[in-house]
């Protein structure tokens, strides 16, 4: 009799393997016979084949110490905190922004009064693309998908009456991220709050923009320099600030699979790590302030597996490939948002239920921060009522369901561990492909990511069309609806007119000489790789240069990006 280790990850005994074969022969061999939509029962949403049930043989390769360990310990697959949510719940951070800074400021006061922990700024399209509200490109877009921020004056209005040293703020902006940080610093310092006291996150993930979200300004190479300068500056001057939020969310929204979201996001993360190291920074100096942002889609277990795999892959790469020595550099911290693309315009109340399941997956996957979508976002910006339901969903989850009591409750599940392994395997296969291109920027330039995502989203749409995958209220269980009575938020064109007016007033009353001087110095710094851009950006912002003027000055040196379209 040979001694065998027992338990998860151990080779099952011959007797048990025999039992398994008997059971598999007796069962339906994983094929569902339940009728329409049954195609979806043997594959995850991302097309990972599924068995009817999982057992020890599915995790035979799992090494308990190497691959699993304990919560709070390398490789952190079970979470980055030993105590999970017992010490501290996730941050409930609803994304909000619309109309003018003043209108959005009122929504922030409302959300803080309702018990929200931090703020999350949604900017409008012109702001995200580096155009002023009165630019011809901004026609019809001002204040629509977020708040219009043209200058420091708007940033000051946005945080009017809010203690910027007390709350944390997340800003979802990428192309002009460095300008937004400069505005945030300037707005706080005008209130007497030093930059070192500021906590929060800036998204600043420009690589994801080329891959999926398409809100870029400059071409990838110079834009990476802007981001690296910003990371370096924030690392050194803002110890409580998360310098970048590397985002898979938009990659998923653009139609990727879970594994693609995981792989492309982490690949982007590693590209920033490499760029910062190439710029002369020590990995342990900046890595502890890197953070991630994932999507939580409707395929419950696949999402949990994705979050767990993300932590394990990141820890292994950071320690073993990039040589990080500080434990904080190994831990992947992330924010999650429920999947906007899973919401349906049909029977919008069903979205409340979808969001609840997706939020649960994010929490079982160990997220540090969560945004739950509002049911009406598929039709328009959310109303106050629907935002409140979305926030209450998180509160019910946190305080009533008791899922916060035990850390990584699904750890050790044959199925979840096998799926976690599969996510990791697929991600590693993508890393190899990206390396074959020569890296992330090169793969972007070759259209690799864009093509992979377009393929996946088309496949997904086809599976819905064929009714292989059931979407409740869309391709099954439909009913005639009168949606005329839905109370939707409207942004009027007056917002654009008002923004244009204040911008003209601002231009008339500021010190024009100072504006030109700071813009000239910024432009000079753009040409000089050795000069960090951030102090120059702060000077421009303090001189009340508008975002459009700053971007124009930079674009004169860097150019603007255009992509080759693939579908």
């Amino acid at each position, binding site marked *: 009799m040979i001694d065998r280790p027992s338990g998860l990850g151990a080779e099952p005994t011959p007797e048990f393997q025999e039992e398994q074969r008997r059971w598999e022969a007796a069962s339906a061999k994983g094929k569902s016979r339940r009728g329409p939509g049954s195609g979806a029962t043997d594959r995850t949403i991302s097309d990972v084949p599924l068995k009817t049930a999982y057992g020890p043989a599915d995790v035979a390769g799992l090494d308990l110490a190497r691959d699993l360990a304990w919560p709070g310990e390398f490789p952190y697959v079970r979470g980055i905190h030993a105590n999970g949510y017992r010490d501290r719940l996730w941050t409930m951070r609803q994304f909000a922004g619309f109309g003018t800074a003043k209108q959005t400021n009122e929504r922030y006061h409302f959300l803080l009064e309702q018990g929200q922990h931090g703020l999350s700024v949604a900017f409008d399209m012109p702001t995200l693309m580096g155009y002023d509200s009165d630019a011809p490109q901004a*026609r019809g877009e001002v204040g629509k998908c977020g708040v219009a921020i043209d200058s420091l004056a708007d940033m000051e209005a946005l945080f009017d009456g809010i203690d910027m040293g007390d709350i944390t703020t997340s800003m979802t902006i990428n192309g002009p991220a460095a300008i937004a940080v400069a505005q945030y610093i300037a707005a706080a310092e005008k209130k007497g709050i030093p930059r070192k006291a500021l906590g929060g996150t800036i998204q600043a993930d420009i690589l994801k923009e080329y891959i999926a979200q398409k809100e870029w300004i400059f071409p990838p190479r110079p834009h990476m320099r802007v981001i690296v300068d910003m990371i370096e500056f924030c690392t050194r001057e803002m110890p409580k600030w998360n310098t970048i939020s590397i985002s898979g969310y938009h990659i998923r929204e653009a*139609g990727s699979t879970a594994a693609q979201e995981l792989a492309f996001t982490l690949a982007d993360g590693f590209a920033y790590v490499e760029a910062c190291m190439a710029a002369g920074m020590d990995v342990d100096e900046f890595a502890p302030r890197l953070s991630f942002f994932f999507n939580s889609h409707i395929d419950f277990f696949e999402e949990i597996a994705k979050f767990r795999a993300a932590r394990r892959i990141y820890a292994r790469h950071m320690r073993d490939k990039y040589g990080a020595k500080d434990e904080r550099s190994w831990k992947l911290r992330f924010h999650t948002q429920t999947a906007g693309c899973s919401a349906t315009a*049909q029977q919008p109340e069903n979205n409340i239920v979808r969001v609840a399941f997706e939020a649960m997956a994010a929490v079982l996957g160990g997220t540090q921060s969560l945004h739950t979508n509002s049911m009406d976002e598929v039709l328009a910006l959310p109303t106050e009522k629907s935002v409140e339901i979305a926030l209450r969903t998180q509160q019910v989850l946190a305080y009533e369901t008791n899922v916060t009591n035990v850390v990584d409750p699904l750890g050790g599940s044959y199925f979840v561990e096998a799926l976690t392994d599969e996510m990791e395997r697929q991600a590693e296969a993508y890393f190899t492909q990206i390396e074959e291109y020569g890296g992330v920027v090169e793969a972007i330039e070759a259209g690799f990511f864009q093509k992979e995502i377009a393929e996946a989203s088309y496949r997904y749409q086809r599976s819905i069309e064929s009714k292989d995958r059931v979407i409740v209220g869309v391709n099954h269980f439909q009913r005639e609806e009168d949606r005329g009575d839905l109370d939707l938020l409207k942004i009027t*064109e007056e917002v654009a007119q008002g923004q244009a007016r204040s911008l003209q007033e601002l231009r008339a009353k500021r010190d024009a000489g100072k504006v030109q001087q700071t813009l000239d110095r910024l432009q000079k710094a753009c040409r000089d790789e050795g000069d960090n851009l951030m102090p120059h950006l702060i000077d421009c912002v303090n001189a009340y240069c508008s975002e459009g003027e700053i971007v124009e000055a930079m674009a004169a040196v860097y150019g603007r990006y255009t*992509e080759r*379209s693939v579908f």
Partner: protein
Amino acid sequence: MANRPLRIVIAKAGLDGHDRGAKVIARALRDAGMEVIYTGLFQTPEQIVQTAIQEDADGIGLSILSGAHMTLFPLVLEQLEAQGAGDVVFFGGGTIPPEDADELRKAGVKAVFTPGAPLQEIIDFVEAECGKRRELVG
């Protein structure tokens, strides 16, 4: 000439980079046997109509998520008229509230498809409406 495939321009306008819907529709129409010209991102209404005229397109499909639909759809209609291409079948879709969709249809947009609209419905619509236009225009 009568038997050449239908030619459709799929367009994105304004600053909105959400191109998932546009690309899926482009693929679906192509798979249904049509010739599809995708404009790429950040087009002005003027550019979109120009593309349709240059490509001798039977239809234009405009996709918008950003909320700018009540500005940009009418601008495309205006341009179509101004360029003497009012017969081109103009349809669209995206994150568009029902009452706005009604208003757009009244203004002359042939159809507005919101998220969840079946691809087959869109294909059938394009085939029928653009086919009718072909018969009229020859």
